[in-house]
C-alpha cells in the first residue's frame, strides 16, 4: 500500500517534469515551425528564445521581436564602427561606407519595418531586404579589416533575411 502510494507520489513528482517538457515544447512549437521556414533555423530560434515575450507571441509578434533584434545588433554595429574609426584614424575612410550603411539601417529601414510589420507587412519585407542589401555592401568594403565588425555585420545580414522570410508568412 505504502509502496503503491510512494509509486504514485513519485509519478506525480516526476510527471510535471515531463509535462513541463511537453509544455515547453508546445509553447515553442510556433517558434520552431516558423523558424523552420527561414534560411537560418538556428539563428532564428536562438534570437527568439532569448526574448521572454516570444513564448506568447503570434507570428506578427515574432516578426516584431526579430525586427527589434536586428535593430539592437545594428545599433551595436554602428557603435563598433564609430569606436573603430576613432581608435584607428587610418581605418576611418574604409569604414565610411559601413558607417553610412548602418546610419541608413537605423534611420530608414528599421523605422519602415517597425511601422509596417503590424499593418502592411510587405513594406516591412522591403525594409529588411534593404538591410540585407546594405550589409552585403558593407561586407565587401570591409575585406581585410580585422575587427569584430565583420561578424556583427554578418549577423545583421543573416538575421534580416530570417526576418524577411517570417514576414512573408504574414502576407
Amino acid at each position, binding site marked *: 500500500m*505504502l*509502496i503503491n502510494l510512494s509509486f504514485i507520489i513519485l509519478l506525480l*513528482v516526476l510527471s510535471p517534469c515531463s509535462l513541463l517538457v511537453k509544455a515547453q515544447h508546445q509553447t515553442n512549437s510556433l517558434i520552431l515551425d516558423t523558424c523552420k521556414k527561414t534560411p537560418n533555423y*538556428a539563428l532564428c530560434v536562438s534570437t527568439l528564445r532569448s526574448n521572454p515575450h516570444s513564448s506568447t507571441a503570434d507570428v506578427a509578434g515574432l516578426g516584431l521581436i526579430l525586427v527589434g533584434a536586428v535593430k539592437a545588433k545594428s545599433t*551595436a554595429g554602428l557603435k563598433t564602427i564609430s569606436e573603430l574609426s576613432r581608435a584607428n584614424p587610418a581605418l576611418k575612410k574604409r569604414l565610411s561606407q559601413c558607417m553610412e550603411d548602418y546610419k541608413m539601417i537605423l534611420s530608414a529601414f528599421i523605422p519602415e519595418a517597425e*511601422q509596417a510589420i503590424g499593418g502592411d507587412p510587405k513594406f516591412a519585407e522591403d*525594409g529588411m531586404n534593404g538591410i540585407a542589401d546594405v550589409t552585403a*555592401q558593407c561586407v565587401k568594403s570591409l575585406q581585410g579589416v580585422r575587427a569584430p565588425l565583420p561578424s556583427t555585420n554578418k549577423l545583421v545580414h543573416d538575421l534580416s533575411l530570417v526576418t524577411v*522570410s517570417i514576414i512573408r508568412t504574414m*502576407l
Partner: protein
Amino acid sequence: MDTYHFLPSRDLEHASSYTPLPDSPETRHEPDPDRSKTNRRPIKIVSSVLLATLIFSFVIFLLVNPNVQQVVRKKVSKNSNGEDHNKASKSPEMLGPPSRGVSQGVSEKSFRQATAEPSYPWTNDMLSWQRTSFHFQPQENWMNDPNGPLFHMGWYHLFYQYNPDSAIWGNITWGHAISRDLINWLHLPFAMQPDQWYDINGVWTGSATILPDGKIVMLYTGDTDDLVQVQNLAYPANLSDPLLLDWIKYPDNPVMFPPPGIGSTDFRDPTTAWIGPDGKWRITIGSKVNKTGISLMYKTTDFITYELLDNLLHAVPGTGMWECVDFYPVSVTGSNGLDTSVNGPGVKHVLKSSLDDDRHDYYALGTYDPINDKWTPDNPELDVGIGLRLDYGKYYASKTFYDQDKERRLLWGWIGESDNESTDLLKGWASVQSIPRTVVFDKKTGTNILQWPVKEVESLRSRSYEINDVELKPGSLVPLKISSAAQLDIVASFEVDEEAFKGTYEADASYNCTASEGAAGRGILGPFGILVLADDPLSELTPVYFYIAKGVDGNAKTYFCADQSRSSTASDVDKEVYGSDVPVLPGESLSMRLLVDHSIVESFAQGGRTVITSRVYPTRAIYSAARVFLFNNATGVSVTASVKAWQMASATLKPFPFDQL
C-alpha cells in the same frame, strides 16, 4: 568581442535538465528508510518502473524534438575552433525565402530578393537621369498607390500614398495633384494627414464616389493607433472649390470596423460605390480567410452606416490577401467607358485584385448579378489571381475611375522601383505613376480588356521618325537614327515571312518569357523586336520583343516580353524578363507601342491586349548615349518591320502657383 552566439548554451542545458537523466539524484529517491530493509524487492520494482517511465519520457522528448541533436552539434562545432559555422546561411539557395505560388501560375521571381551583390557605385549623373519627364511623380520622396482619382469642375484629381519624410514607405499621407489633361500636373498641399487616432498609423488607400447630385464621398482605410485597419469617410470642405483643397474627415469615423472572422490587418482599400436595383449603394473590400482571397460586400444609403452582406462578391482559394480590389462595368458592344453603376445586357464586369503575396495585379471578366450581389467569372480557370494580369511587369495597386467628362474608364497604376531601397534613399525619391490608360473590352477576343495610353499623351509628341518595310533577316540588327532616345513614343509593326512561317512545323512548342534567356535566347520564330535604352556597343540594352512558338499541331502562340537581363551593368537592379503570351487573331500583324521615359518603359502589344511596364536603370545608355535598334534574333524566319517614333517633350509638373492668384 564576438557578440554572436548560437543557441545560448543555457537554454539547451536547461532543456535537457527538464528531463532528469537516469542517474540524476531524483531517480535515486528512496522511500521510507525503515521499510528499505524489509521491502527491497518491491522498491527495486518501483525504481525500475520509474526508470522505465523516465527513459520513455526522455525518448519521447527527443523524438518530438529532433532538432535538439542538430543544435547540439552546431554548438559543439562552434566551440571547437571558435569560428562561425553557420552553414545554413552559406548555401546559396538559402539566401532568400523559398518562392511560392508556382502551381497557380504565379511567376517564380515574383518578389524581390535581397541581392548578395554590393551596391553599384551610382553617380549623380546616373541617378538624376533616372527621373522621368512625362510620368506623374512628386518632387521627392516615396509614393505608392494612386487614390481617389476623379474629375471635378474641369480638373482631373489624383491623390496618392506619400511619405513626406523619406524615400521609402512610412508616415503615409495623401498627396494631391490636379491636371487639365492627365499629363501636365500641378502639385497641391496634402489632402489628408495621419492626424486622428483612426488613421494615425497611415491614411491608406481609398476611392471616390460621385453622387448623382454632384457630392463627392471619399472612403479610405485608416490604420489606427492600435494598428487596426478601419474604413473612414471624408468629403470636400467646399464642393465649389475646383481645386478641392480641403477635406473634412467625418467626425464619427470610423464608419467600418473589421467584421467578425476578418483579421484586423486584413481589411483595406474600399472601392468606388455603385447603386443596385434596390437603390442602395454597394462597395466591396478585399480581405482573406486563411489563404483564400475574398471580396466583402457592404450596402449603404448614407455612407455612414453599412450593412455587411452574408455573401461575398467573390473568392478564389490560394490567392492570399486581396488588396486594392477594383470592380467596374465595361461595354461589350460600345467603345466608351461606363459609369460604375451601369449594368444590364451588353455589359460585363471586371473584377480586379492586387495580390499581396506576389505584388501583381490580376483581373478577370465576368457577370455581376445585382440581385444576389455576386460576380461569376466567364472562365473559372482564369479566375481573379490565377489568370490574366493587368500588367506583366512592375505594376501594382491599380485603380480605375469613370471620367464622366470624356466618357471613358481610366486606369492608374503604381510603378515602384526595381532597384535597391538604399539607392532610392540616395537619389531621394521612389516610384512613379503609369501614364493613365483607357480601358475597354476587347471585342475581338472577347476574353481580354484593352489598355491604351490616354490620347492626351500624344500632345507631347514632337520630332517624328519613320521607317517602313525594313526586311530583317535572321540575326539582323538595324540602328534607328533617333536622337534623344530617353523620351520616346514608338509604334512598330512586324510581319513574319509567311512561307517560312508555314514551313516551320515545330518551333519551341512552349515558351516562357521569365524562364527564357530573353532576347539572347534564339528560336526559329523569334525573338524579334526593338532594343531601347541601348548603347552603341550594346553593353546595355532593353529588348522588347515578340517570340512565336509553334506546336507539333501547327498552332502558333505568340509571346510578348520585356527583357531587363542586360539592361544595366549594375548588378543591384532587377534583371528579370517580364511578359506573357498575347492573343493574335488571324490577319493581325504583330504590333507594339512603347513609351520610353528614362527609367520607365511601358510596352503595349496588339493594341493593349498584353501590357508590360519595366523600370530600367542603365549606367551607360543614358543621355546622348542612348540608342534604338530594330532586331531579329530568330534563326529561321525573316521579319518585315515598320516603325514610327516621336521624341517626347517633357510634361510640366510644378507646385500650384498660389502666389500668382
